């Protein structure tokens, strides 16, 4: 449904960053939110290649500044890619040549709320339906699930809605012309965990209706709700696979360490010569270790350092572990 091959996008800032790339950020890692060259040009997308199959929920997982919104704007024909030997099509239409066709068949919910604040809920919805030569009535079955929840407030101005309701209205407006492909750019940013779960249940039901969905998020835990995901950092795709495939291809020895005085424990773990990385993961720490270290040896070491009741357990990686590993490789190799 979506084919992207070797997509590049460069922004010219004219700022000129005088040879400061690859600067150490205090943690021994380069800080590569953006790749910029000496002319100040920013490489927002750097050879992105992936495919989205029909009916998939495909997640683009990456932090702010990774290039997610740039990718969405190009796929929705709102921004031109760099010229060069690349291929970018949506439902077989070329994003540059066939932009008119593409705009008819896609729904797009941008990251920033972009409905008309001075129109009511109902007026906004009617407006977007009219733009696509359709009516709310004709496609009510598509939006019923979501719009039904805000319909009691249909006479309220969009600007006066709460965050959660704005989100539902924006999704309704993106769906009212019954699109084939739905583009959702960070629909859950700033949304609490329960409302996020509800939002993903809505996406599941849209997917069952046959709508292909490309959705971006900075929340790693949402990766598991997708059919397939792409991990994105610094304008590059680091991996594309099912969430299971991503975690299965993780090849580090990963242990969970729990105990008292967690911040001090973290510092002690990092000081151990056979510990490669150590990061806080909620109520436990995740550490990757060299093969010669054993669970018992690490526990005894920590006990010797005065940490009582330490538990060390081998665990399965999460998408976040995989993301952090891949991301470190990309950022370190960024010079």
């Amino acid at each position, binding site marked *: 449904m979506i084919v992207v091959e070797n997509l590049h996008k460069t922004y010219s800032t004219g700022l000129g960053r005088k040879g400061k790339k690859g600067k150490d950020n205090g943690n021994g890692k380069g800080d590569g939110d953006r790749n910029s060259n000496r002319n100040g040009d920013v490489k927002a997308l750097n050879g992105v290649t992936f495919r989205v199959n029909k009916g998939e929920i495909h997640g683009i997982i990456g932090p*702010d500044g990774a290039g997610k919104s740039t990718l969405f704007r190009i796929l929705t024909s709102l921004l031109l890619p760099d010229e060069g030997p690349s291929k970018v099509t949506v439902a077989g239409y070329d994003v540059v040549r066939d932009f008119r066709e593409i705009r008819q068949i896609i729904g797009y919910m941008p990251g920033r709320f972009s409905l008309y604040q001075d129109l009511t809920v109902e007026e906004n919805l009617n407006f977007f339906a009219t733009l696509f030569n359709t009516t709310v009535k004709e496609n009510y079955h598509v939006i019923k699930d979501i719009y039904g929840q805000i319909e009691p407030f249909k006479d309220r101005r969009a600007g006066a809605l*709460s965050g959660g309701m704005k989100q539902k209205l924006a999704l309704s407006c993106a769906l009212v012309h019954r699109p084939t492909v739905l583009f959702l750019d960070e629909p859950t940013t700033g949304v609490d965990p329960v409302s996020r779960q509800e939002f993903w249940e809505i996406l599941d039901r849209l997917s069952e209706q046959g709508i292909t969905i490309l959705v971006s998020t900075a929340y790693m835990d949402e990766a598991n709700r997708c059919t397939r995901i792409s991990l994105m950092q610094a304008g590059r795709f680091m991996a594309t696979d099912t969430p299971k495939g991503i975690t299965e291809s993780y090849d580090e020895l990963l242990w969970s360490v729990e105990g008292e005085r967690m911040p001090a424990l973290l510092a002690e773990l990092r000081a151990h010569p056979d510990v490669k990385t150590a990061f806080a993961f909620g109520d436990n720490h995740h550490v990757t270790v060299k093969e010669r270290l054993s669970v018992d040896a690490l526990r005894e070491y920590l006990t010797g350092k005065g940490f009582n009741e330490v538990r060390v357990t081998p665990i399965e990686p999460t998408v976040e572990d995989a993301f952090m590993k891949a*991301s470190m490789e990309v950022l370190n190799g960024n010079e």
Partner: protein
Amino acid sequence: MGNVIEVRGLTKRFGNFTAVDRISFNVKEGEIFGFLGANGAGKTTAIQMLCGISKPSGGTGTVAGFDINKESEKIKRNIGYMSQRFSLYEDLRVWENIRLFGGIYGLSEKVIAEKTDELLERLDFASERNTMVKSLPLGWKQKLAFSVAIFHEPKIVFLDEPTGGVDPAMRRQFWEMIYDAAERGITVFVTTHYMDEAEYCDRVSIMVDGRIDALDTPKELRRTHHAASMEEVFTQLARQAKRVE
């Protein structure tokens, strides 16, 4: 150790809608306090009252030792604030941002100059002194924004979703800065939608429909709610909400 925040029956009504409904709690000096709740539960309104920018409809209390009903100007001078949306001026250089905020909080030119050198040194930012903030990578901006928020050495700093959208490694580095600040005696009051971050707090409160329905250490909250994670605790409580947005 004293309390940096003490509020009793704090309430905010808009017409006949009660956004914050008689909340009472203390935050201890040097504590990292997590302030959780679903969207629309009343967190932002509560924080606005605590920071002295919104007048309570009812209740009493002090923040940094000043009365929230009578001394809102003094509160503003004695707290730090940072949110993800607004933190620094993009079109000013690094040193200009520091000087601006130092000046707003009434520090002298001399003190600002000395502290600026020390701060840039500590962050390993000395070579970025003259860089426009807009051309800094996001992770650096976050670090700088936090440092600027506590530049005037407030008793307490309010962090409103400071890590939204930040990449996983950077998010953890940011929390290490929070720990450093707490160790230097600055109380940290933080909101987040990342439930793993709730675990990093000394104590956590969870707001539901304008009330504080739970307040304890993460460990105790998990135990009393028979939950394996803070995410479960949060879900249990938030699903009880009756308020229609």
